[in-house]
């Protein structure tokens, strides 16, 4: 186990290892997205109150879930980067910041588009919108400081500290904001015996959530591979690889 992980922390080995995964992840993303979108947009019934506009949740909810999941991945990778100083986890941190900001922005934008017909306004200062916005600020802060420092290894460790600090703060921020005001509907109960979402809507949502999950890892691997090639562009193995292609 430790040996395997140690191997995986070498950039060259990771590049080869992730290369095997990328086609699978890409394929699964495409299949799941097609199934999920078709199911959600055409098969699932319209909502009796919100009509067709509710269908944006098939993008909005998975994006919101991913915005938090990616932060946790980033913080764990940041912790590993600080303790063991592995280059691979440093790259995970910087790439997760970009992908996480993207998911957060997507969740906010789709939420605003949904809010206009449903609440009658694009923006409400309610707890979840606000803490999602703060999450976006945290991501943007990490991206900003990462790009401000030239030495990529120092930049990665600074970003890691921020990611770990942020992950302690996110629950605090979240609960303080919830406590401050709440207008948003309560969390969906998906796994309880009587789920608050009807199965005809729940299953396509879960398919989309799986699609986003696979998409995240596929995107992360592809972005990391590019970064590895760039960082190692002066080494022999990259030169050989480029010469071969």
């Amino acid at each position: 186990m430790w040996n395997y992980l140690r191997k995986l922390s070498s950039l060259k080995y990771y590049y080869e290892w992730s290369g095997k995964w990328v086609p699978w992840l890409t394929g699964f993303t495409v299949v799941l997205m097609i199934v999920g979108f078709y199911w959600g947009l055409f098969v699932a019934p319209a909502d009796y109150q919100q009509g067709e506009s509710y269908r944006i949740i098939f993008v909005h909810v998975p994006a919101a879930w991913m915005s938090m999941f990616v932060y946790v991945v980033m913080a764990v990778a940041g912790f590993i980067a600080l303790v063991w100083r592995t280059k691979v986890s440093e790259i995970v941190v910087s790439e997760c910041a970009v992908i996480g900001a993207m998911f957060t922005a997507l969740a906010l934008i789709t939420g605003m588009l949904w809010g206009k017909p449903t609440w009658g306004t694009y923006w409400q200062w309610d707890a979840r919108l606000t803490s999602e916005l703060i999450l976006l600020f945290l991501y943007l802060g990490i991206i900003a400081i990462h790009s401000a420092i030239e030495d990529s290894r120092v930049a990665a460790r600074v970003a890691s500290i921020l990611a770990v600090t942020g992950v302690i703060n996110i629950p605090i921020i979240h609960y303080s904001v919830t406590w401050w005001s709440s207008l948003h509907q309560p969390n969906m109960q998906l796994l309880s015996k009587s789920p608050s979402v009807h199965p005809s809507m729940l299953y396509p949502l879960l398919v989309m959530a799986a699609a986003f999950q696979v998409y995240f890892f596929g995107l992360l691997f592809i972005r990391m591979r590019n970064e590895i090639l760039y960082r190692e562009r002066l080494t022999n193995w990259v030169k050989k690889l480029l010469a071969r292609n």
Partner: protein
Amino acid sequence: MLNVFLTVIRRDLLVAFRRRAELMNPVLFYVIVTTLFPLGVSPDVHFLSQLAPGLVWVTTLLAALISVESIFRQDFEDGSIEQLFLSPHPISLLIFGKVVAHWLITGVPMLGIVPLMALLLHIPGQALPVLWVTILLGTPILSLVGAIGAALTAGLRGGGMLLGMLVLPLYIPVLIFASSAVSASMDGLAVSGQLAMLGAGLILALILAPFAISASLRISMG
């Protein structure tokens, strides 16, 4: 060990008192920013007193942000921080001493100026004790969390704007609990919940922040 801690504080206070003129700067900044709000929003008494808890605390956040930016700058540039790292004492403790000294220089004067702020913004006298307690509990958190950001940006040129981006989102819980405690006390409601949350935040920051600050400084030194 306590001796070393006190020595660091004494040294930083001494350096600050050598340049006495600068000591007043955070307080002056505080007063000037506060006067901007009646000018920019409205001088109406009811309106102002309704906004006042938020205004006082937003101003406190900004003052803390600006003052914390330079907490390590000079020591970082002249190499004093490196000397601290070379000493045999635990670095977190030494750095914690620096943060305490910083709070004594910037946070404590705020306690003195707050009654004046309350007067200018028409905060009733009954809310003053609570406002004081929130400043007392809140500003150390701002110094501790801000010092993490300052340590991360210490080696960067023009880190001020960046520091705001990193630190202000982390200040939000303090803003929420502190300003809500003040407005609750103005309405004669119970404030123990908010104050307890601020106290818990302070304890958490006291325990964790020194480690994060010293780790950040170590990285910034390269």
